[in-house]
C-alpha cells in the first residue's frame, strides 16, 4: 500500500463491483450512502412539488384545493346514499380519514412509478435506489401537510372536543408514513418486473378505501360490528392506523392499546419487508429498465 505522502489522501475506499447475486448488499455502506444522499431525495421531491403546478392559475393552492374537492365528492356520495344523512360531523370524519388515506395512496402511486419513471437518473447515476420510493413518500407527506389546517377548520364547525391528546396523533402519522414507505418500496419493485402493477393500483387503492373506516365508522356497522372490527384490526393495516388517527385527531380519545400495537406492527413489518425486498433486487433495475 502506498504511503499517505505519496498520493493524495484518498476519499473513497476500494469498491469492488461483482456480478449481481440475488441477495442483500452490505448494510453498512448502503445505509451510510443512503444517509449521505438524503438531501438529494429531499430536493428531488421538493422540486417535484414546486414544479407540479407552475403554469396553473391556482398554483400551489392546488395542494389544498385537491383534497377539498375530493372531500366534497365523497361527502356528496355519502350524504346522498346513506340513510342517516350528512352533516358537518360526517364531513369532518370523512375529511379526517380521507386526507391521511391520500397520503398512503399517493405514496403508493408515486412510489410504484418512481423507479421505472426515473429512467435516466437510474441508468446514469450510482446511488442507493431506495432513495426513489423515499422521495415519493416524502412528496406524498408534504402534499398532506397543507390539508391539516383545512381539517382543523372543518373540525371547528363540529362539536367534537379539542384537547392535548390530539397531539398524540402525530405518532400515528409517523406510523402511517413509515407504513406507506414500506408499501411504496414493494410496489416499486413489483412495477419493474410486472409493469401491470401501476394499472391495477388505482383499483386496489379504491377498494382499500372502501374497506377502511374513512367513509364509514365502526358504529355504522351495527350488529356485525365487533366481529368485523376484530378481523379488520388484524387484516387491514389502515383500520388501526387511520382508525387511531381519526380517534385522536377528531374525537380526542386515546385509542386502546391493541390499536397502537396493531398499527406499530404493521408499520414496522411493511417498512422492513419492503426495504429488504427492494434492496435485494435493486441491482437488477438498471438492466431491466
Amino acid at each position, binding site marked *: 500500500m502506498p504511503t499517505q505522502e505519496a498520493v493524495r489522501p484518498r476519499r473513497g475506499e476500494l469498491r*469492488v*463491483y461483482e*456480478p449481481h447475486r440475488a441477495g442483500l448488499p452490505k448494510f453498512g455502506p448502503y445505509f451510510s450512502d443512503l444517509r449521505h444522499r438524503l438531501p438529494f431525495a429531499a430536493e428531488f421531491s421538493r422540486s417535484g412539488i414546486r414544479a407540479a403546478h*407552475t403554469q396553473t392559475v391556482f398554483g400551489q393552492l392546488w395542494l389544498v384545493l385537491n383534497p377539498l374537492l375530493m372531500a366534497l365528492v365523497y361527502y356528496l356520495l355519502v350524504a346522498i346514499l346513506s340513510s342517516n344523512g350528512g352533516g358537518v360531523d360526517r364531513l369532518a370524519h370523512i375529511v379526517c380519514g380521507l386526507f391521511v388515506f391520500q397520503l398512503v395512496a399517493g405514496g403508493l402511486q408515486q412510489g410504484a412509478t418512481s423507479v421505472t419513471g426515473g429512467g435516466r437518473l437510474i441508468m446514469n447515476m450510482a446511488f442507493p435506489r431506495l432513495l426513489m420510493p423515499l422521495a415519493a413518500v416524502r412528496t406524498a407527506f408534504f402534499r398532506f401537510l397543507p390539508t391539516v389546517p383545512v381539517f382543523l377548520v372543518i373540525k371547528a364547525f363540529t362539536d367534537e372536543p379539542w384537547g392535548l391528546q390530539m397531539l398524540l396523533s402525530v405518532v400515528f402519522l409517523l406510523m402511517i408514513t413509515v407504513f406507506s414507505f414500506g408499501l411504496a418500496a414493494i410496489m416499486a419493485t413489483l412495477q419493474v418486473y410486472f409493469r401491470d402493477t401501476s394499472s391495477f393500483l388505482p383499483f386496489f387503492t379504491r377498494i382499500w378505501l372502501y374497506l377502511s373506516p374513512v367513509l364509514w365508522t365502526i358504529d355504522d356497522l351495527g350488529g356485525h360490528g365487533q366481529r368485523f372490527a376484530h378481523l379488520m384490526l388484524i387484516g387491514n393495516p389502515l383500520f388501526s392506523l387511520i382508525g387511531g388517527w381519526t380517534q385522536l385527531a377528531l374525537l380526542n380519545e386515546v385509542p386502546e392499546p391493541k390499536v397502537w400495537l396493531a398499527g406499530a406492527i404493521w408499520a414496522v413489518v411493511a417498512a422492513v419487508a419492503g426495504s429488504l425486498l427492494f434492496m435485494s433486487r435493486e441491482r437488477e433495475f438498471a*438492466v431491466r429498465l
Partner: protein
Amino acid sequence: MDLTQGGSRRSDENAHPEVQPAAADQGDAVPTDTEAIDAKVVDDQPAQGTDAEGQAVAAQPAAAQPGDEPPADAPVADAETPEPAPAPAVAQPRIERKYPVDPDAPPAVSVQDLSITYRTTFEKIPTIKSAIVRLGRGERAVREVHALQNLSFDVMEGTALGIIGANGAGKSTLMRALAGVLPPTSGRIEVRGEISSLLSLGVGFNGALSGRENVMLGGLAQGLTRAQVAERAEEIAEFAELGDFMDLPLRTYSAGMAQRLAFAVSVHMEPDILLIDEALSAGDARFKNKAAAKMDELMSSARAMFLVSHSLASIRELCNEAIWIHEGRLMMRGTPQACGDAYTRFLEVGENAFTLEDL
C-alpha cells in the same frame, strides 16, 4: 470524424517546429522538416512498445499516417526512413501533475475479465394465429446482447484514458459499469476513489425550475452536500456563462445551453476519477476551449480520467493513453495516436477487425 478539429491548435507548432524528440507520445506533433521527421520516427517506436496488452498491433508504417493533419503530406512520404532509435521507457504524461504519483500504487481502476450482457424481451408483431393462441399478445422474444466480452485492463493513477470505438461498441456500457450502475454479468471491477461521472447530461434536472435550482439539484445528485453546492454555485454559473438565463426555467433553454449547464455542474465536483461520455460535443467553440482547459485542470488533481469521444483529436489532445473497443472486445491499447490510427484505418478499410491482428 473530427480529425481537423485540433487543426487550429496545432498551427503554432506547424510554424515553429521545435519538436522535442523525447516527447514520446506526441504523435500529433506535425513534422515539417527532417529533424522533426526523425522525432516522428522515434515517436512510432514507443507507440508499438507500450502496447503491453498482448494485442498484436497493426503495423505502423512510418509513412502512412492517415490521421495526420493536412500539412503533413509531401515531406513526410519522401524523407522517412526507419531508423533505429532508443525508445523512451515510459510515455510522458502531457498533464502536469500537482502531486507525485506513487508508481507502486495499486491501479486506480482495475477491470478483470469483465462481461456484460443485456437481456431484452420484446414482443414480436403478433400474427393472427399467435394473437389468438397467446390471448392477444405477440410472441415474446428474448434477445441477449453481449455488450462487453472479457474485457481486462488496468488504469494506473495519473492516466487519462481515451476510449474510442464505433457506435454500439460498448463504450457507454463500460462507463456505466465503471460508475457502478450496471453490475457485471461476469468478471469484476475494482475502483479506488470517488467517481464523478458525466454520463448523461441533464441528469436530475427538472424543466420547470430555474437554472440555479437545477444546479442545486444536479450538485446534490452528484453526491455533494448542500453547503458544498452553495459554495460552488457562483463558479458554476460563471463557467456556464448563461447570464440572465440562470434564473429562467430550464425549459426555456436551448439544448446546447442545458448541456453547458450540466457540464459546468459536473466538472466542479472535484472528482477522483472522472468519467466523461461524449459530453464534449456540447457547446460552441468558445465553450469547448473552456471545457478542454477545465478538464486539463481537473486531470492535474484527479486520479484518473476516462473519456469517450468520437473526436479523435479531442482524445489526442486530452488523453495520454487510449483503448479501442469493438463489439465489446478490447482491440488495442496504446497511445492516442496509435489507437486513433488503427481505428481510422479499420474504418476506412472496413475489414473484419480481427484480420488486422495478423498483420
